[in-house]
C-alpha cells in the first residue's frame, strides 16, 4: 500500500496543492485529474524523488512502513511511464527489456523473462527488431512491460495514453490495468481524460485551484 500524507506544494510562495492525503492499495490505480499547471506533474516528481528545487513541497510518502520521502530516487524502486514510450532507439526490443531486469537475476532466467514478456504481446518474432519497427500501441505496451520487469514497488503513470490513437487507447488501457493487477503494486495515474480514469476502475481525485494564497509557507 502506498500512502501520501499531507502533501503541499508551492511555487514562488503561491500554494498550488494544500494538504493532500490519499492511500492506494496494491493492484489498484488511483487517478488524479485537474487543469494544467495545478501541480499534477510535480506530485509525480515528488513521488519519484525528482522534484526541481525551485518548487517547495512538504509531505510524507509511505510504502507499507517504509518512509520513501527520505530516500533518493534510485533507492525508491519506482516505475514511471510517460507520454513518450522512451524505448532506447539504438537497442532491439529484447535488449530494451533485458536492460530493465535486475542484475541479480541469473543470465538464463533473464532471457526467459524477456521472452515471456514478448509472448504476452505476441511479438516473439520481433525480439531483434528496433523500437521504431513497432506500432505506437505496441511501443506503449513494451514500455510498460519494460518498466514492470525492473520490479518496481509502485508505479507512476504520467498521461501514458494521450499520444495514442483513440481506437488504440481502449486496448492499451485494459492491458495496463491487467498488468498492474498481475504485478500487484499500487499505481497512480495522472490524466486529462475522464475516460482514462474510468477505465482504471479505481478512485479518482480531482485537484482544484487553491483559492487562498498563503504568504507564509509551512
Amino acid at each position, binding site marked *: 500500500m502506498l500512502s501520501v500524507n499531507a502533501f503541499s506544494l508551492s511555487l514562488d510562495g503561491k500554494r498550488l496543492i494544500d494538504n493532500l492525503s490519499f492511500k492506494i492499495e496494491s493492484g489498484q490505480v488511483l487517478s488524479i485529474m485537474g487543469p494544467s499547471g495545478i501541480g499534477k506533474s510535480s506530485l509525480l516528481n515528488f513521488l519519484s524523488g525528482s522534484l526541481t528545487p525551485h518548487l517547495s513541497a512538504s509531505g510524507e510518502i509511505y510504502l507499507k512502513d517504509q518512509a520513501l520521502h527520505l530516500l533518493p530516487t*534510485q533507492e525508491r524502486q519506482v516505475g*514511471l511511464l*510517460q507520454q513518450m514510450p*522512451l524505448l*532506447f532507439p539504438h537497442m*532491439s526490443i529484447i535488449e530494451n527489456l533485458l536492460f*530493465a531486469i535486475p542484475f541479480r537475476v541469473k543470465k538464463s532466467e533473464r532471457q526467459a523473462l524477456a521472452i515471456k514478456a514478448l509472448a504476452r504481446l505476441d511479438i516473439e518474432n520481433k525480439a531483434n527488431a528496433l523500437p521504431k519497427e513497432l506500432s505506437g500501441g505496441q511501443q506503449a505496451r513494451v514500455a510498460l512491460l519494460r518498466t514492470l520487469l525492473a520490479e518496481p514497488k509502485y508505479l507512476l503513470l504520467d498521461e501514458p495514453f494521450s499520444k495514442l490513437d483513440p481506437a488504440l487507447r481502449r486496448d492499451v488501457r485494459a492491458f495496463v490495468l491487467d498488468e498492474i493487477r498481475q504485478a500487484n503494486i499500487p499505481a497512480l495515474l495522472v490524466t486529462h481524460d475522464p475516460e482514462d480514469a474510468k477505465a482504471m476502475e479505481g478512485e479518482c481525485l480531482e485537484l482544484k485551484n487553491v483559492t487562498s494564497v498563503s504568504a507564509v509557507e509551512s
Partner: protein
Amino acid sequence: MPLKHPKQVASLLVFLLAMPIAVGLVGTVLPAFQYFPPLGSHQFSLAPWLTLFHSEEFYSSLTLTLISGIGAPLLAVWLALSLLAWGYEKPLFRRIEAMLAPILAIPHAAIAIGLLFLLSPSGWLLRLFSPWLTGFERPPNWITTQDPYALSLIFALVIKEMPYLLFVMLASLQTMQARQSLQVCRTLGYSRLTTWRKILIPQLYPIVRLPIFIVIAFSLTVVDLAMIIGPNTPSTLSVTLLRWFNAPDLSMRYIASAGAVVLMIVIAIVLAAWEFGHRVLQQLTTPERSNGKRQGATDYLVQLGAMLGVLSLITAFLALLVLPMWSLTRRWRFPDALPSQWTWDNIHSAIPLLIQLSSNTLLIALAATGIACLMSLLMLESKRASYTKETPPKHHPFDWLIYVPILLPQVGFLFGVSVLMLQTNINGSFLAIIAMHLLYVLPYVYLTLKGPYLAYQEEYLYQANRLRYQPWRNYLLIKLAMLKPALFTAFAIGFSVSVAQYLPTLIAGEGRHSTLTTEAVARAASGDRKQVGSMALLQAFFPVFVFWLSQQLPRHWTKWRLALKTSFSMRKKSSIDKK
C-alpha cells in the same frame, strides 16, 4: 555524465581554455617591446616598433594582406549567398550540397597544391588548351599563380571559404522558414532573387556573422596557403612575419612580435570596419526593401555570383583531380593534355616516407581529436548542468572563449604559446604538437557537438537510471550511444582540422616531426610535382575517408551489431544442439 562537481569542472575547463590564450598573448606582446627573458632581454624598449615602421617590406606585406584578407571574404560571401539564392532547393544544387562536406574535409594545402598544378603557366589548364588553341609549345612567361597582386591567393581562399560559408548558411536556413517566405513572396509577385535580397539575406546574415568573422580572420592570417600560392618577395604579412620569427638573427624576433601585434590589431579593425560596412549597407537598402519593386538590377549581381560560384567549384574539383594524375605520372611533357606514360614508381619509391608521414599525421590527429571529444563532452555536460529547464541558458564563458584561438593570428600567438612549452620542456615532442593542435581542433569539435548534445532528450537517460541505476554505464550506453551520429561527425571534423594544421605542427614540433601537411607545403615550391602530388593526395584522402566513415558507421551500427549478435547466438545454439 554524472558529474559530481559540475561547477568546479567548469572553472577548471575555463582555466584550461584561457591559460594558453593568455600565455600566447603575453608571449606576443612582451617581446614586441623587447622584453624576452629567454633571449636575455629584460629591458622594455620601443625599438622593435621603430624598426618595423621603417621597414618597407612591412608596408608592402601589409598591403597584400589587406587586399587578400578583405577581397577573399567579400568574394566568398558574395558567391556563397548568390549560389544559395540561385539554387536553394533545386535538384542540381542538392548535388552540390552533398559535395560540400567532403570538400570541407580536404585540407586547404592540398587544394592549393592542386590549384598550383592546374593554374600555373605550365599547369593542366594551359596544357588542355595548348597548342591547338593558344599555340604554345612551351609554358608562357606569364605569372598566373603566386602573382604579385595576390589574386591567385584570393582565388584559393575563395575556393576554400565559399563551401564553408555555404555549408553554414544551409544549416542556418533550417532555423528560418525560408521555403514559406519564398512561397509567400512568389504569390506576391516577387522574383526569386529579389526575395532573397530583400527578405532572406537580411535575416540570414546575423546568424552567420560569426562564421564570416572566422573566415575574415583566417584570410588575414593564413600562412600555408599563402606560402604555396601567394605572392613572394614581398609575401603577405603573416608569411613575412614567419620568416622573421625563423631568421637566424634572433633580434628579428622582436620585430616579428611587433608585427604580430599589428596583425592582431588589423584583424580587430577589419572586423569592425566590416560590421560598420554592413550597418551602412543595411541603412541604405532598408528603404529599397519596401519600395514594392518585384525585381531589380542587383538581381544580375546574384546571377553573376552564382555562375562564378559554380565555376570555382568546378575548378576545385579539377584541382583535386590533377593530384592523383601527377602522382601516377612518369612522363608528361608540356603541351600534352595527359601524361604520355603512367607509372606506380613514384608512389612505390615514396612509400617509406609516405608511411612515416602518414603515421605521424594519424597519431597526432587521432590523439588530438580524441582528447577534444572528451573535453567537449566535459564542457557541454558542465554547461548543461549549469541550467535547468526553468532557468534559461545564460551566456557561458565557453561560448566565446572557444572562438579566441581561431580568431587570433597563428603566427605570433603560437610563438607566444611555444614559450610555455619551452618552460615545461615538452617542446619538440609529439605531446607538444598534440597540445597545440588541440587549440584548433577543440573549437570545431565543441561547436559541432554543442547543438545535438544540448538538444538531447534527457528523459531517456532518466528513464534508464530509473530502470537500472548505473549512471556512468547508462551515460555511455544510452546517452552517448544515442548521440553517435553527432559524435562521429564532430570527430571527423576535428580530424580534418588536425590533418590540415601546418604552423602548429611546425612550431610545437620544432621541425623534428613532419606530417603530410608540413612536408607537402615545404616541397610545394620544389617543383617535384610527382612527389608533392602523392603527399597532397594522401593528405586529402584521410580526412575524406574518416568523414565517409563517420557518415556510414552510425547509420548501420545498430543493424550490424544486431546482425552480428544473432549470427553469434545462432552458432552458439547449434553447437549446443550438437552436444
